[in-house]
C-alpha cells in the first residue's frame, strides 16, 4: 500500500440550511482512504454519512475542514469520483443499458464513442448483463438496475467509487448476492471504494476498514479493520455510551 492517502478528509464540518434551522450534519470528521481500500462509513440514520459522501462527491462544500483527493482539494463534482446512488432512477430511462454507460464515458470526455462502446460492452459483461445491453432500464429489476449503475461507475475507472447505500432498496436475497458480486469485481480490478451503509453485516462483509459514526451531529466514534470487527462489538461502540469510554 502506498504511503500517501488517496483521499483525505480533514476535520470536515458540514452544515446545511432547512427552512427553519441550520443543521450540522457532521462535526470535524477526519479519515484517510488509501488506494484499493474498501472503506465503509457506518452509522445510524441521521449521522450525516450520506451528506459526507456528497461532500466527497463535491456536491456540498464543507463549512470547516478540507477534503483532498491526491492532495488536490475537492471543489465540485467530477468524473474522477463517480457516484452510485441508492435510487433505482439513477439510470437515465431514455437510454438503453449500454447507452447509459456510453453516455457517462462520452459526456465526461473520457473516451470517444467507438472506444466508449467497447468499454461499455466489457463492463456490461463483467456484471453479467450482456443479454440486456439493449434493454431500457424500466424493463430491468431493481438488482439489475443497480448492477448497471455499478458497471457505469466502474467503466469510468474513477479514482474512487462513491457508493451511497447502493443495495439498501433491494430485497435481502438480492442484496447478499450483490455484495458477493461487488467483492468479486473488487478482486478483479482492485478499485477504491467509499461505501456508506447503515447495515452492520453489510459493513463487515463489504469493507476492509470501517468508520463508525455517531449521530446528531455525525462524529467519528471509531475506525476499525473489518477483520477484527464483529457485529456485537460494533453495535456496542455505536449504541452505548460506555462503548466509547471502554473501547
Amino acid at each position: 500500500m502506498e504511503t500517501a492517502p488517496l483521499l483525505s478528509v480533514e476535520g470536515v464540518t458540514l452544515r446545511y440550511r432547512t427552512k427553519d434551522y441550520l443543521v450540522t450534519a457532521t462535526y470535524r470528521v477526519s479519515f484517510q482512504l488509501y488506494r484499493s481500500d474498501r472503506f465503509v462509513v457506518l452509522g445510524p440514520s441521521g449521522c450525516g454519512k450520506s451528506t459526507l459522501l456528497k461532500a466527497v462527491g463535491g456536491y456540498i462544500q464543507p463549512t470547516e475542514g478540507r477534503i483532498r483527493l491526491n492532495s488536490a482539494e475537492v471543489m465540485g463534482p467530477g468524473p474522477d469520483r463517480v457516484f452510485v446512488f441508492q435510487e433505482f432512477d439513477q439510470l437515465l430511462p431514455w437510454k438503453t443499458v449500454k447507452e447509459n454507460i456510453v453516455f457517462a464515458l462520452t459526456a465526461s470526455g473520457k473516451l470517444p464513442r467507438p472506444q466508449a462502446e467497447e468499454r461499455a460492452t466489457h463492463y456490461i459483461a463483467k456484471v453479467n448483463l450482456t443479454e440486456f445491453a439493449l434493454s431500457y432500464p424500466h424493463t430491468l429489476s431493481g438488482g439489475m438496475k443497480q448492477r448497471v449503475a455499478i458497471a457505469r461507475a466502474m467503466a469510468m475507472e474513477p479514482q474512487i467509487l462513491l457508493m451511497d447505500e447502493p443495495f439498501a432498496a433491494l430485497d435481502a436475497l438480492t442484496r447478499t448476492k450483490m455484495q458477493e458480486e461487488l467483492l468479486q469485481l473488487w478482486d478483479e480490478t482492485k478499485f477504491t471504494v467509499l461505501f456508506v451503509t447503515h447495515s452492520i453485516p453489510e459493513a463487515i462483509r463489504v469493507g476492509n476498514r470501517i468508520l463508525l459514526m455517531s449521530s446528531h451531529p455525525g462524529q467519528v466514534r471509531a475506525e476499525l479493520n473489518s477483520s477484527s470487527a464483529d457485529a456485537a462489538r460494533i453495535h456496542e461502540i455505536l449504541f452505548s455510551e460506555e462503548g466509547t469510554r471502554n473501547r
Partner: protein
Amino acid sequence: MLERPEIFHEVSTARLDVVEKPLSAWEKLYDNGAFRKSALLVILAAVWELYARWLGNPLLVPTFSATVGALFASIASGALPQAAVYTISMLLKGYIAGLVIAALLTAFATGTRIGADLLETLTAMFNPLPSIALLPLALVWFGLGAGSVIFVLIHAVLWAVALNTFAGFRSVSPTWKMVGQNYGLSRTGYIARILIPGAFPSILTGLKVGWAFAWRTLIAAELVFGVSSGSGGLGWFIFERKNQLLIADVFAGLLTVVLFGLLVENLIFKTIENRTVRRWGMQV
C-alpha cells in the same frame, strides 16, 4: 412443541392445461386500440346518417353521405385543399414561432430565478386569456393579414408550451441532475442531455395542448376576418359556404378540421409518444 415432519413436493405441470395459450383472433383484434377507435367512428357516422335521414332537413343537418359527397366535390374542385394548405401553412408558422419563443423564455426561466418569476407571472396573466380576444387588438397593430393571425397563434401556443416545459424541468429527478453533474456535463449539455429528455413527458403534453389551442384559435380567427391577401383558410371556407347556404359544404369543412386534428393526434403525436416516453417507460 409438536414434532412435525418436513414436507417436500415434486414440482410438475403435467396436469396443468394452460401454461401459455395463444389468444384468439377476436381477442387480438379487440386489444388493438386503432381497431376499437375505428369501430367507434363507424358507429358515430352511422348514428349521424340515421338522425339526419330521420330529420330530413339538409339545411339544418345534412346526412353523413351528403357531407362526404360535398367533401369529395370540394376536394375535386380544389377549393378545400387550397383552404387547408393555407390554414396549415399559417398554423405551422405560428406554432413554430410560438415554440421558439417558449424555448427562449423557458431557458431564461431555467437559468435565473428572476426568469422563473417572470415566466410564472406571465403565464398566470396570459394563459387564461383566450387568444381570440386579442384578435381585435392584433388587427389594429398588424393590420388585416398574416401578421395578426400569427400574433394570436403565438399567444395561443406560447403559454401552454412554456408552462408545461418549465413544470417538466422542475420535476426532473434530482438524482438525474446529480448524475449529470457527476459526469461533468456543461450547462448546455446538461439542458440538452438531462433536462429535456427528463422532462419530455411534460414537454410533449405542452406541445399537444399548444397544437390544439393553435388549431382552434386559427379556425376562429379565420371565421372572424376570413380573406387576407386574396386567399382564405378553412375557417373562411366554412363561413363563405354558410353564407351561400351550402350546409353540406360547411359540414365538409368542419369534418376536414376534425380529420386533421385526429390525424395529427394519432399519427404524429402518437408516433412520437411511442418512440420516446412509452419506450422509455416514463409513461404507460
